[in-house]
């Protein structure tokens, strides 16, 4: 920050430079707070630093295992490369600052044909060559030190005639401190994303199975929409001649409910390996979950779909424990909840068999969907039945989309429990 207008009084120039330093420091926190993504945060930082404060900048950030350094910057900030931490052994200056957190200011000999300090500070051959071609006068290496650990480094270069002053170095150290804090938050966020992605993948199949004589569709909106995980889960596995559909929920929302939901889903899958019959699956699942999750209420609906050899007709055996309401949607618009025998214990398992023809659909909707509450009260079974009647004969995909839209519009922006529905259509 030594640029100045010719003829400008020295005091004014120094004051302007001090102001720019101060502005830079305050802008770093604000600008980097806008994103929790590491790459976008680094791009913001590099944009603030170059070309005014430094002619060239490089940022290195350790990966979560501390084995590799991701490198951002150079002449093309879009580029990203990485190096092994083991390669730092030969770069004395960089290794020192990564170990001690201390700033390294190297005055590069510009009149020397090969600037030397950069060999000890820039840990990538291509970037090092790029830096050397700039013929820098000063190279400033700063540790990204935060919460007691060095998580990376920042290298700034300046050309001849505008080396780093003591005040510039202090400003750069403050920038590095603030940047390190933001980048560490982004690293923690990335770790959380990896965790929630793993949980999310365990709650639902990545895609529904292809069964030529059947058509499947699903809609899922978690209560914690930004996480995509919750206490509701669904599954579909098998072939068109013997397809298993699972729709379930455990009490609770978000990350807290997800482990129990994952366990329930896996228990159903394991039980179905031995027998696809709903009574066997629900019985074995209950036996497996009772000791593991004694205080968790698990609602389950399991449907075994067996398509006739020629297609166009299927027998569906349904088992239910809890309050999930399967709905049968006939092509002609005849819509009705599947009838189960009345039981004294509302949480005991109960079973039903239905026969469906080409175009008929079975909807397994979560209780959270039926209990969705908007300005006009609860969504409820009657609205679900009315919507299904309107979309009878249109197909599983259309109905799934229409149902999601209808419920979300009904909510009118209000919060909701997990919303989920799994639909199978016969004979498409």
């Amino acid at each position, binding site marked *: 920050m030594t640029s100045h207008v010719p003829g400008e009084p020295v005091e004014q120039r120094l004051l302007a430079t001090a102001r720019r330093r101060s502005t830079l420091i305050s802008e770093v926190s604000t*600008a980097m707070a*806008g*994103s*929790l*993504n*590491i*790459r*976008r945060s680094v*791009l*913001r930082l590099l*944009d603030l630093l170059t070309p005014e404060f430094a002619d060239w900048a490089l940022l290195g950030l350790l990966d979560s295992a501390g084995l590799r350094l991701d490198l951002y910057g150079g002449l093309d*900030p*879009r580029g990203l490369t990485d190096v092994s931490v083991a390669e730092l052994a030969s770069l004395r200056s960089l290794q020192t600052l990564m170990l001690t957190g201390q700033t390294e200011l190297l005055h590069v000999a510009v009149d020397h044909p090969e600037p030397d300090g950069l060999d000890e500070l820039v840990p990538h051959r291509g970037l090092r060559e790029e830096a050397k071609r700039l013929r820098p006068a000063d190279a400033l290496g700063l540790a990204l030190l935060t919460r007691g650990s060095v998580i990376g480094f920042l290298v700034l270069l300046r050309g001849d005639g505008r080396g780093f002053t003591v005040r510039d170095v202090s400003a750069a150290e403050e920038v590095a401190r603030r940047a390190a804090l933001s980048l560490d938050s*982004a690293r923690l*966020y990335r770790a959380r*994303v990896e965790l929630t992605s793993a949980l999310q993948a365990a709650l639902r199949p990545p895609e529904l199975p292809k069964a030529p004589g059947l058509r499947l569709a699903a809609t899922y909106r978690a209560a914690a*929409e*930004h*996480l*995509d995980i919750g206490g509701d889960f669904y599954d579909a596995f098998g072939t068109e001649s013997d397809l298993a559909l699972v729709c379930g929920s455990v009490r609770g929302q978000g990350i807290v409910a997800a482990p129990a939901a994952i366990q329930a889903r896996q228990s159903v899958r394991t039980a179905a390996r031995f027998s696809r019959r709903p009574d066997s699956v629900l019985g074995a699942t209950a036996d497996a979950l009772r000791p593991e999750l004694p205080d968790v209420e698990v609602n389950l609906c399991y449907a075994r779909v067996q398509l006739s050899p020629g297609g166009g007709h299927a027998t569906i055996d349904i088992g239910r424990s809890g309050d999930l309401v399967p709905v049968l949607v006939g092509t002609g618009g005849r819509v009705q909840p599947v009838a189960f025998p009345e039981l004294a214990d509302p949480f005991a398992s109960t079973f039903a068999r239905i026969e469906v023809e080409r175009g008929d659909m079975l909807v397994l909707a979560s209780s959270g969907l039926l209990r969705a509450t908007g*300005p006009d009260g609860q969504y409820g079974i009657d609205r679900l039945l009315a919507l299904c009647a*309107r*979309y009878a004969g*249109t*197909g599983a*995909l*259309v109905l799934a*989309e*229409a149902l*999601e*839209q209808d419920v*979300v*519009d009904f909510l*009118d*922006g209000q919060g909701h429990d997990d919303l989920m529905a799994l639909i199978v259509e016969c004979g498409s």
Partner: protein
Amino acid sequence: MTAVGAAGVEEFERAVAGFDAAAGRGVIGELLAAGADPICVIDEVIVPSQHQVGLRWQRGEWTVTQQHAATEVALAAADALRERLPEPANRRGHVLLACAEREWHALPVTLVGLAMRSAGWDTTVLGAGVSPLRLSRFLHELGPDATAISCSVLAGVPTTRRFIEASAAAGVPTVVGGAAFGGDARRADALGATAWASSARGAVHALQGLPLLVPPLPPPRRELGAELAALHEQRPSMLRDLAARWQPFGGGPAGVRRPDSLADAVRDCLEQSLHAVSAALLTDDPAALAETRVWVEAVLAARGDGRAAEHAEQLGELIGVQLREYPLTDALLGTHW
């Protein structure tokens, strides 16, 4: 790459009119196999057919259900397109695509995503009815080079603005498009978008000119923010009140319900009109109001309302009465409905 002939366009329109998804897939597959440019297939075959689907509903020829079934044909066509797109050797960057809350037309954003993929961009398509919270999650998770937002209904404009804000806060530039933006960049500019596009090809072209970083957006003017908040808060009660007062097809005998298709049309007219007010305020473009009045009149006339123009006019007056305490809205409605 070859252009798309008229025969292919007509064949696809026939598949859509017959709600025949397999035929629609087949037509698109044949066009691509014959060497058609995927972006031409999107802009010249699939998108025009969808425009016709919307007009058929507007003219009362199709119900909402038929509209959905026809859109399924286009979605099947999109699947056929997706399956045949080659993996590009070099990726240009990553684009996050989404529709805002209250925007349920997922097809345009899906098609634009495919056009971008065909041009070498990685894409993540979040689909329809996305909340700002969900968009933010993906902005932070993916760190995309751009956000592409599709908005075909004015109801989606307020959340589109929030998408643009969220993207800009993360430094990510935005490309927007869709019928809600009108025929030029005015509304997109007013919302703070980095670029506007009128077609899939335009969106791909816009990506190439985007900056790496954009600054955060300034907040909306205080008085504008206050009126928008009031409109949002009072919308349910205003809808109930307007539904009781506005009877475009006549009230009918007491206790007798309108047919579902007419009730749907009346509800849509009321909702779209209120959304148009918010959109006009937010985009500083009163044309959104005039366009909505014309649309309401067309919807009513197509369903047999002999006094459609008068009823459309009356709807504006009734909304004006409800919103007369709000100076910005009052001024807009008084001169532009």
